[in-house]
Every structure is written in structure tokens, then in C-alpha cells.
């Protein structure tokens, strides 16, 4: 693996390997000294062209826990706001000797361009591009699902706790809400499918993307029927991305209240979930819109744990992309 751009590029072995590495990273995070010397002397650049709190902080924490130097570069207050192109920004980073670039961009495909245009030789990690992909979010979701539910799936391969070594086959995941604008949903559909889980997308017809029939998942417009008949093991609520809805396309649902009635996870729907089911949300939550406070704060919710797991998964991604020399000959000493 040279770059982490899309979950669709990951093989099942790579994905399980990444989750297993994340499990070892998570184990180091309960120690008194959380810092590891692994990436000492290497530089990670956080290149954020779009606002982000948790992803940027999570990547920064992960890089620092591995002793890498972190440079934060956000479009606001940088030369990008003066009109610098992505190419010139990349050449600047190259000249500064970045070993890895974590990039979030409002344009789908910007990380791919950065990785393959020959502007830099650093590893590129996609931290969310437009409405395309958010691979580390999908990986941390898969890690969280595996930790809680691997014992219930049929893909039980590991002997250790927390489902190490297992995939997600036999598990059912419902992804509910604004699928149209969601890179989290796209990244999750690809990864969960690779890991063997079944996925159902639940959304109002206006928020289902064109061409969804070609995705490896089912779609439904009816949340209640999905919860009652399909019995998902994990329910992932997506944020209603109001900032992406303000364009010329107008509104996607008549009123927030109606959306909440039909597609929100409230106490009533929470009570109908199976006992073992977990409730997830990639954050930031709109409490009262797609998820009620009862659901967000219930015992089934693993939303805060998702944030903690994000650090371990990003440490694993940085380790796997940066620690080794992929061109080196094997040495069995």
C-alpha cells in the first residue's frame, strides 16, 4: 500500500490487516506512556481545504502518538486563499520534505490527483474528498462494528478478544439518512461489502444518489420496515448535510420535523432494535434531527467510542503507509 485513497482499493486481506494493526495500536493507547517512537523524524502534513474538527485532530493525535512531526495547513489563512493552485501547494509540500500528506478537499478526486500527478513522492491519505470517499472513517466504523459484533458474525477467525483476525461476514448494517451527500456512506458500502457484511441504505428518495442500483447493497425508503423486518446488527445514522443542500437544487425534504419523523432514530425506534445492536454516527450530530438525544446517549450508542477508535485506526494507517520501505528486499532476521 502506497496511498490510502479509497476503500474500494482495499482487498479483504489488507482491510483485515489494517484493522488488526489498529487493535494493537489501541492496546498501546491504554498505557501510561502513549507515545511510540515508530515514526520519529518523519513529517506528516495535514492539508485541509475544508473545515474539520475531529478528523484533523484525530490525524494530528495519531501522528504525534507515533512521534511524527505534524504540520497543519488549512486553506483559510494560507496562500490558498490568495488563489494558489493544488499543484503549487503540492510542490511546496514536496520542497518541505513531507513524508505523508493527509488531505481533505471539497473536490472529489483531489487526493487521487495529489497522489498520482507526480507532484510529490509522499504517501497520500484521503481524509475526505467531496462526496466521494472518507476511508479512515469507514475503517474506524468497521473496527467499531468488529469490536462489538464479530462474535455474532460467521467470519470468526481470530482467537484474541475484540474480534482480531475476523471479518464482518454475516453482519447486517443499515446506513440511514443523507446518502446522497455522504462520502461516509460511499466509503462504508465499499469496505463493509469487502469485509463480507450486508448493507442496506435507508433514505428518502430525494437523498438517494443516481446509480445506486450498481452499488453492492440494498436500498429502502422505509426505516421502520428495515428495522423490523431486516433486523440490522448495526445502525449508522448519517448527518443531514445542510451546508451541501443550500445550492440551486432547493430543499430535499419538506421540513426537518418530517425528516425526523420518517428517518430519525428516536426512543421508539431505538426500543425496536435487537438487544445486541449498536447505534453509530460519524459526527457531528444534529441532535433532534437525524438522531434524538435518547438514542445518542443510550447504552447502544458507540458514538464516543468511534472517536477513540479513530485515533487507533489512523495510527495503523500512518504506520502501514510510512514505517516500512516498500521497495526494500525482504529480510528475515
Amino acid at each position, binding site marked *: 500500500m502506497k496511498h490510502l485513497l479509497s476503500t474500494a482499493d482495499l482487498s479483504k486481506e489488507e482491510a483485515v490487516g489494517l484493522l488488526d494493526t489498529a487493535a494493537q495500536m489501541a492496546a498501546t493507547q491504554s498505557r501510561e506512556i502513549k507515545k511510540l517512537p515508530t515514526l520519529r523524524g518523519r513529517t506528516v502534513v495535514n492539508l485541509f481545504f475544508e473545515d474539520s474538527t475531529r478528523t484533523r485532530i484525530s490525524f494530528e493525535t495519531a501522528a504525534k502518538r507515533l512521534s511524527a512531526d505534524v504540520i497543519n495547513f488549512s486553506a483559510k489563512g494560507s496562500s490558498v486563499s490568495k488563489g494558489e493552485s493544488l499543484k503549487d501547494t503540492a510542490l511546496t509540500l514536496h520542497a518541505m520534505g513531507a513524508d505523508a500528506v493527509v488531505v481533505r478537499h471539497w473536490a472529489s478526486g483531489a487526493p487521487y490527483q495529489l497522489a498520482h500527478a507526480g507532484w510529490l513522492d509522499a504517501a497520500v491519505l484521503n481524509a475526505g474528498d467531496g462526496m466521494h470517499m472518507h476511508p479512515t472513517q469507514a475503517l474506524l466504523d468497521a473496527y467499531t462494528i468488529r469490536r462489538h459484533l464479530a462474535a455474532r458474525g460467521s467470519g470468526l477467525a481470530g482467537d484474541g478478544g475484540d474480534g482480531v483476525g475476523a471479518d464482518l461476514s454475516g453482519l447486517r448494517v443499515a446506513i440511514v439518512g443523507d446518502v446522497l451527500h455522504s462520502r461516509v456512506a460511499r466509503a462504508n458500502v465499499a469496505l463493509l461489502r469487502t469485509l463480507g457484511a450486508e448493507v442496506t441504505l435507508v433514505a428518502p428518495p430525494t437523498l438517494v444518489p443516481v446509480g445506486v442500483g450498481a452499488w453492492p447493497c440494498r436500498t429502502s425508503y422505509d426505516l421502520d420496515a428495515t428495522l423490523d423486518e431486516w433486523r440490522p446488527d448495526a445502525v449508522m445514522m448519517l448527518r443531514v448535510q445542510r451546508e451541501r443542500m443550500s445550492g440551486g437544487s432547493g430543499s430535499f425534504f419538506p421540513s426537518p420535523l418530517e425528516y425526523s419523523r420518517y428517518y430519525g432514530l428516536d426512543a421508539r425506534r431505538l426500543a425496536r432494535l435487537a438487544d445486541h445492536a449498536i447505534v453509530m454516527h460519524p459526527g457531528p450530530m444534529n441532535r433532534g434531527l437525524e438522531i434524538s438525544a435518547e438514542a445518542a446517549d443510550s447504552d447502544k450508542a458507540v458514538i464516543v467510542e468511534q472517536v477513540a477508535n479513530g485515533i487507533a485506526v489512523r495510527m495503523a494507517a500512518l504506520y502501514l503507509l510510512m514505517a*516500512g520501505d516498500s521497495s*526494500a528486499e525482504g529480510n528475515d*532476521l
Partner: protein
Amino acid sequence: MSSGPALPADSDPDGTTVLGASDVARALTRIAHEIVERARGVDDLVLLGIPTRGVTLARRLAERLAQIDPAFDVDARVGELDVTMYRDDLRRQPTRAVGVTRLPAAGIENRTVVLVDDVLFSGRTIRAALDALGDLGRPRAVRLACLVDRGHREVPIRPDFVGKNLPTAQNERVRVRLAEVDDVADAVVIAGRDDAAGKESAR
């Protein structure tokens, strides 16, 4: 892997067998007694194996310690220490998988920790293990036990307990095989000796 107990000791096609199963067993028993003697009992002893085969060896040593002194609780005193993320050669090699680190229930704080590895070579693995140990706590003392010391040290590290000193050439490979890990009888094998054999006869 065709080496088995039925075969004569040195007919292994993968190399020369220098220690057989009974040699390994005797060496471990002696090391266990030396550990107890040096520590004057088993009270503060904790064994940490370095994956993969060091973990198995640590477990076997612990079972012998429990035979010497039944007060020694094998499960609470044996752990494993993965040193992958502390290695100094990460950038020269393909990415390594990170292994499991599991501290014994007894902890390592103020204990005498015995690191257990199969082959001691450059000493760099042990240097990494000392760094890893420093991040986990502060043992009262750290000792090193290894089944084979093959020389060629690159850092100033020496073992406290050695199963067998094995003079080797730099380009030879020493392999330890253990029943639990490799599904063959215990053995220590030197491979890649073809060119070294010529040198030896010339000596």
C-alpha cells in the same frame, strides 16, 4: 519442513541440526535453574517473551520455574513484548505486522524482568525491547535469556543466560523450531552453511 524425530540429526535438507529436542530441553532446564539462582528465588521474577518463539520459550521456562518452586504462578508471571514499533530498521524493510504486547498480571514495576528470545544476533531486537520496556514501566532489573547466542553483536548487549553459544558466519542463518509454533520436533538448525563449510575445512 521435513525434519522429524525419525530422521538422523544432520540429514535435514534445510541445514545442519545443531541442537535436538533433548538438547533444547536440557538447556532450558539449566537456564531455569540459573535464573532462580541469580534472583535468589522466584518472588519478583517476571518473564517476557519476544514474539514469536521467545513467547513459547518464556512459557516453557516458566513451567520449569514452577517445578522448581511451586509458588511461581505461570499465568500471572509470563507475558509477551512486541518490539516492532521500536525497531531501528523499520525504514529499511517492508512494513512489518505489529504483534501483541501482553504484560503479565503481576506487572513489571519493581520486578526482575527476564527477556526471553530464541536467537541473539545483532542485539538490535533487544535494544528495541529495552526501549519498549522503558515505556511500559520501571523494572528493578532486566535480564536476558536466549536459547542460542550466535555472536556478531552490533550494540553493546550481552545475555545473562545462554542455552548454547554457537559460533557462526555472518551469512549463515540460525533457525529455532519449536513444537508449539512449527509443528515439528524442537531443533536448532543452521542453514546456508554451504560456503561456510568450505571455509571451515580450509581453517
